[in-house]
């Protein structure tokens, strides 16, 4: 009898509780639906950058590095230029009218960013701790190693580091580059000239016997003189990570560039054609010995974008 009367009471109590909880949850859901996203959005980051509202995006590129950044009929072309175009388009600067490619030499890259003559540098800029103190990097967008290129007359004669140390061979490299330091650490005496192009010209005139530099730069010259040179499969030193240089005072722009590189990386990983892969296949791909994939960018911020709801598969 007692349990008979307590059961409806219990039921009434649980019903009340259930109704109340449902109402609370519904209210919470209502508040949640009107909340701003917790993560910053791409648009918000855009508003924080120094380029917001600028009519043109100025990107520093090399004009003397075949396959990476060179002038062809007055227009910059190359892997770096393609990557720069992808980033510019992602940032809202589509088309040649909205992008200004500023030629920067290797040693001008940091001053150009510091002096504000360019907004970004995409020019075989390797990420180092030393440089990170003065500029920010987004990336890496490419991993490269030091390699050696020899004229076909020396094919098979220079194939190890030991051969490079041989005083009979004159090794050439460009000044201020990572190669110079790497060669020094391997006790290889090298002739230091201004650009890799000078080394290549020197080898063609017989002044030098080999040139050491980034494999990308060497591949560029190989593409220009495919019958005269050969890459030696002798990676030495640590691999280098190429990144996009951004002024150190603009973390928002760095985050955005990293975010868009990551987007391309994910597209490539999902077996789709990514902007990176397209750029690679059109430029470096045919000339490098080993096939490469886009490296995963580091320190990518989590940002909210309009296409986040698109199906992943």
């Amino acid at each position, binding site marked *: 009898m007692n349990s008979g009367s307590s059961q409806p009471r219990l039921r009434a109590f649980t019903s009340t509780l259930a109704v109340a909880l449902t109402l609370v949850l519904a209210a919470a859901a209502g508040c949640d639906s009107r909340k701003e996203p917790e*993560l910053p959005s791409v648009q918000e980051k855009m508003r924080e950058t120094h380029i917001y509202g600028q009519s043109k995006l100025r990107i520093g590129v090399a004009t003397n590095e075949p396959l990476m950044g060179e002038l062809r009929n007055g227009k910059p072309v190359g892997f770096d230029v393609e990557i720069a175009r992808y980033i510019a388009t992602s940032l809202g600067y589509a088309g040649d009218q909205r992008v200004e490619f500023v030629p920067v030499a290797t040693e001008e890259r940091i001053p150009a960013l510091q002096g504000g003559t360019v907004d970004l540098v995409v020019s075989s800029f390797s990420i180092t701790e030393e440089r990170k103190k003065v500029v920010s990097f987004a990336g890496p967008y490419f991993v490269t190693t030091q390699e050696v290129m020899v004229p076909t007359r020396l094919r098979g004669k220079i194939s190890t580091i030991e051969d490079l140390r041989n005083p009979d061979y004159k090794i050439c490299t460009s000044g201020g580059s990572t190669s110079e330091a790497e060669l020094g650490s391997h006790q290889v005496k090298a002739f230091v000239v201004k650009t890799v192009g000078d080394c290549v010209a020197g080898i063609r005139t017989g002044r030098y016997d080999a040139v050491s530099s980034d494999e990308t730069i060497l591949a560029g010259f190989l593409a220009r003189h495919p019958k005269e040179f050969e890459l030696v499969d002798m990676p030495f030193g640590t691999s280098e990570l190429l990144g996009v240089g951004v002024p150190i005072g603009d973390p928002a722009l760095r985050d955005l560039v990293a975010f868009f590189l990551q987007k391309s990386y994910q597209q490539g990983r999902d077996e789709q054609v990514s902007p990176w892969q397209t750029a690679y296949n059109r430029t470096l791909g045919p000339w490098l010995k080993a096939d490469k994939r886009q490296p995963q960018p580091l320190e990518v911020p989590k940002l909210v974008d*309009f296409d986040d*709801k698109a199906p992943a598969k």
Partner: protein
Amino acid sequence: MSAAPTATGGDGPVPPPRSSVPADSPTIDGTATAPVVDRPAAVAGVAWPAGVPVAEPAEPVVVEVEPGRVRWDPAERRARASQSFWTAVVGVPAIFSVLRLGVEAGGELQTTLLLVANVGPVNLLAGFLTTAARLLSTGMVAVFALGAVLAVSADRLPPGTRRRPLFARWADITPAWVVLASFLLALITWPLLYLPLLLPAFVAAFQLRPERLHERVVPRLLLIGVLLAGYGWLMLPTLREAMRQGDEWLVLALLVVPPLLALFIAGPLPGLVIRPLASVTEVAVLATLAWAAVPVISTPVLPLTVTTVGPESGPTEDVRGHVVTTDDVNMVILQEQGGVRYVPVDLVRAQVLCPSEEELPRHQLRIHDFHVEDSLLEGMGRRVRPVHRIDAACRTPA
């Protein structure tokens, strides 16, 4: 309606139109053609056998009506409710749509008139329904669910002391198909994240107690267990991801708790709770609807575009706004920041459709690759057109 052939219909001779007025009914000028018999109106016109007494009420059949207060019989009441319902269905969107135009125009009279002249009523209504369907279904689901629970509980009130709660009366007079339709509308328009809440609401609205599953306890518990397990299996990957993200407690609660609440929600509630619950929820639902109606009114009527304007060879400019109309001479753009631009058609270089910032997601969770903030409709749509490219021009400032 009429089976009689129309003048344009058949080939044969058209029969003379049938008189709509019976021969013995009063004529227009008020004189009666039939002899007036003193008997109740209900039997007028019927040949009354001679010698049979006519039963007449002691008093004339006039319903005592309090001045200012009308008592409706249920059928009449139902008819009236249906009339109000359809008036609301047609009227509310119409009023909202016009209000939206005013807001869209930035409060400017001339701009509002420009919009009124160029936005067709059908487009306006369709645009309104796409944005307001969610709000509409939420309101109806809330009213019907609460109404049903209150209705079943209201029997516990002392009989005849007070009126039944408003929502209970609404739920009583609403046909089941309207309730079902509002739940279906909610099912396809609510974000997936909030869909579990529809479960207790449905159970409440249709009073589906667990006893309905099976009359014996053990099979009933088994059935409930199986249903909950199925739900858990569906949600498990999302719940894991929400746990991993750490700060998604609300999502966890919204996905886990409602199915459990559905087991107990069907009422009845104790008499003590009914009154306060009825009044509080009436105010709350009204306030919520008003609060949620603001974004619906301010949602744009026209799609957001960026139009690149400039001469063939020369500098271009991006105009961000809503295209009102295009004719042979001009493209009329209502700019996002306000004001109307008449852009000569020859100067239009390109135009892209852009998303608005209100569409940005708040959660990074998916239920089997459906984003939790997408409705079933949106999720299916994304499967039909999976690639969504944001045009570069959309990133440029307004």
